[in-house]
């Protein structure tokens, strides 16, 4: 397969770029923040995204989705990164949809996926328990009973957790913290008795939550996939979500570069445009190079995700590289803007805040560099 977009993907890219620039620019995120909108995204926008087919981007046509594949999801995420468009796209349409596809039985798929594709159902994964991403380190307990399971424990850093109607919860049915075996996935209704949802106000002004499970009862049908074997489905689904996050980071990095270059072409000091200073030119050129290199790794990983099979190596490569480049881009963007880059009134700050938050989501640079090394055999 050629490492470029095909015609259909090119069209999708153009339509996504246009859509988010028009309907959900950075100013929308600012308004959502300043108005303290509870959801931290616009339900109207989400409806339109569903109509565009974005909400069902990964869902097959038989389940009412657009079936654009991971490359398609990456293009949408990149456009959202450029505009910092807020929506449950990543949590529900990518993470949850991929996981249901990987773990769910036929009945679960046909009841849940169409609702996700239509944007009517917002689901999200509840996985981390500490500040460090470590799926196998999950300790939350799910104790089997005659009628199902009882869940007890804590989950943190749940994206769109405050707005989601349902959670896919990773909990331990057997084994010890650190064991790969013994983890299971459960479909939990937000209204379940004993589930406490605390919205976290986070740096990126988006919707996050901490969940507390005080003996939440779910019936046996809530089990998603095989008991004790969650990691087999979770690994590939998480990898899809990670690569799409990488694409969002790429969008952020590219936008930071573009805005910075524009500023270098406008701002004068010492009687000349600051873009004529070679010290800045070289930094901008280096950032350009890093972004292009990152773009290749991400496109490759997106394609490998669509091709099926084990793509852990590609996914960790893409997420690691995207984290590093987004960090560079957001730092350089502020520095090259000078004082104005530090002001809340100016948009650049929103980019660094979102970037760092999702760099951390589902494994940061170090997590993925380590995993990349393992996958490479060292």
């Amino acid at each position, binding site marked *: 397969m050629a490492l*470029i977009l095909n015609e259909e993907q090119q069209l999708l890219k153009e339509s996504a770029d246009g859509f988010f620039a028009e309907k959900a620019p950075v100013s929308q995120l600012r308004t959502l923040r300043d108005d303290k909108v509870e959801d931290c995204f616009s339900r109207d926008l989400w409806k339109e995204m569903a109509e565009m087919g974005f909400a069902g981007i990964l869902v097959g046509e038989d389940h009412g989705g657009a079936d654009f594949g991971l490359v398609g999801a990456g293009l949408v995420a990149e456009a959202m990164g450029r505009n910092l468009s807020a929506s449950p796209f990543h949590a529900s349409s990518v993470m949850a949809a991929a996981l249901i596809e990987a773990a769910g039985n036929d009945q679960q798929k046909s009841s849940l996926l169409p609702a996700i594709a239509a944007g009517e159902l917002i689901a999200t994964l509840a996985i981390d328990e500490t500040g460090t991403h470590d799926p196998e380190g999950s300790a939350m307990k799910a104790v089997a009973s005659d009628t199902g399971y009882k869940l007890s424990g804590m989950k943190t850093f749940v994206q769109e957790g405050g707005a989601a109607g349902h959670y896919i919860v990773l909990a331990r049915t057997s084994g010890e913290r650190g064991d790969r075996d013994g983890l299971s996935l459960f479909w939990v209704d937000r209204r379940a008795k004993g589930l406490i949802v605390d919205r976290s106000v986070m740096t990126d002004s988006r919707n996050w939550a901490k969940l507390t499970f005080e003996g939440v009862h779910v019936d046996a049908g809530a089990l998603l996939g095989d008991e004790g074997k969650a990691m087999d489905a979770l690994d590939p689904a998480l990898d899809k979500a990670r690569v799409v996050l990488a694409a969002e980071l790429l969008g952020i990095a590219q936008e930071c570069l573009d805005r910075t270059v524009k500023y270098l072409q406008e701002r004068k000091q010492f009687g000349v445009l600051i873009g*004529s200073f070679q010290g800045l*030119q070289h930094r901008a*050129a280096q950032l350009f190079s890093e972004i292009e*290199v990152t773009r290749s790794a991400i496109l490759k990983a997106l394609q490998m995700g669509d091709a099926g099979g084990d793509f852990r190596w590609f996914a960790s490569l893409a997420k690691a*590289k995207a984290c*590093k480049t987004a960090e560079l881009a957001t730092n350089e963007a502020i520095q090259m803007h000078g004082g104005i880059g530090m002001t809340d009134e100016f948009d650049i700050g929103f980019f660094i805040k979102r970037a760092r938050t999702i760099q951390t989501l589902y494994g940061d640079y170090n997590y993925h560099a380590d995993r990349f090394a393992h996958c490479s*055999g*060292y």
Partner: protein
Amino acid sequence: MSDLEAFRSETRDWLETNCPPLMRTPSTGEADICWGGKTFVFQSDDQKLWLERMGARGWTVPTWPKEYGGGGLSKEEAKILASEMRRIKARSPLVSFGIWMLGPALLKFGTHEQKLEHLPKIARGEIRWCQGYSEPNAGSDLAALATKAEDKGDHYIINGQKVWTSYADKADWIFCLVRTDFEASKHTGISFILFDMDQKGVTTKPILLISGNSPFCETFFDDAIALKSNLVGEENKGWTIAKYLLTHERTGISDMGLPTPLNALAVDKLGTKNGEIADKMLRHQIAEHEIDAAAFMFTLERAKDEAKAGGDMGAFSSMLKGYGTELNKDRHELILKVNGSDAFEWEGQFSNNGEIARNWLRTKANSIEGGTTEVQLNIIAKRILNLPA
């Protein structure tokens, strides 16, 4: 079976039959490369045979047209040939500046006669070329070159000096930038010309590098003669050709380091603990490097696929050159660390005469030759990012 699948299986069979055993072992560095040319001494019969067989099929230059000695393959077919060669670990039958730099420029700017004259000899490895660009006072500022060519009717008389001319002492011909108009502005008085190095007016003087090898020279022209039929493009319009050739040179330099093994070497040298390289700090540094290297490898793949789809490489080659060469330098620094003090033996059996140290030192030139990293960043800033002068 599709045409491409048929091509793959034919190619596989042909390579199996025709690639000599020794040519399926990894080369150990520059000394192993087949450069071709009138005075080239083959290191083995296998090397000679391999060049002859591949040259006869035009597979030293798979995508060049058949009439000019090439293989006439489509880009898809060439990709298959390359992957089949990789499969059996076949060495490149011929590496040369003719293939890598002059060929593409002649294909684009040469006349039919010039192509017929020069390209087949490049394809068969009969003539070895060198590049006469840099001068003592024209390095990064290449357009400041002052080597003079005087019009004498059917030929030019050339006087001046080139420097850093790689393998000038081993080359048969030179592609050379000369000034044909001293009144015109810097970029508009330059011509691109080809001439024979084997003549009274040309002398070369080798220069020793820090690696202890001497791959390049000072090159002097005292009334050297170049036939006008070997002027490529129009007189005074050589700069466009020079730049086009540089984009090929740069793309070529960018991926030199990728095949050098690093993590396998580290596993071998340092051992593992719980499946991880035992030296934790080095493991981290290697992973960091390999992430960049892998992402860069996919960037080369993407650039090739974009070019195939009709995109223009242009200044993007500067990005590839700058990034790839810095990466290669970093790679060799890591190879030193993995080898520890063993890396520094300079002479002797144990180190194959200082191979690690010499190769490491050689990489320092990667970010200088073909235009320095700083120059590539200038090009990106100006031509891609449109930053002001």
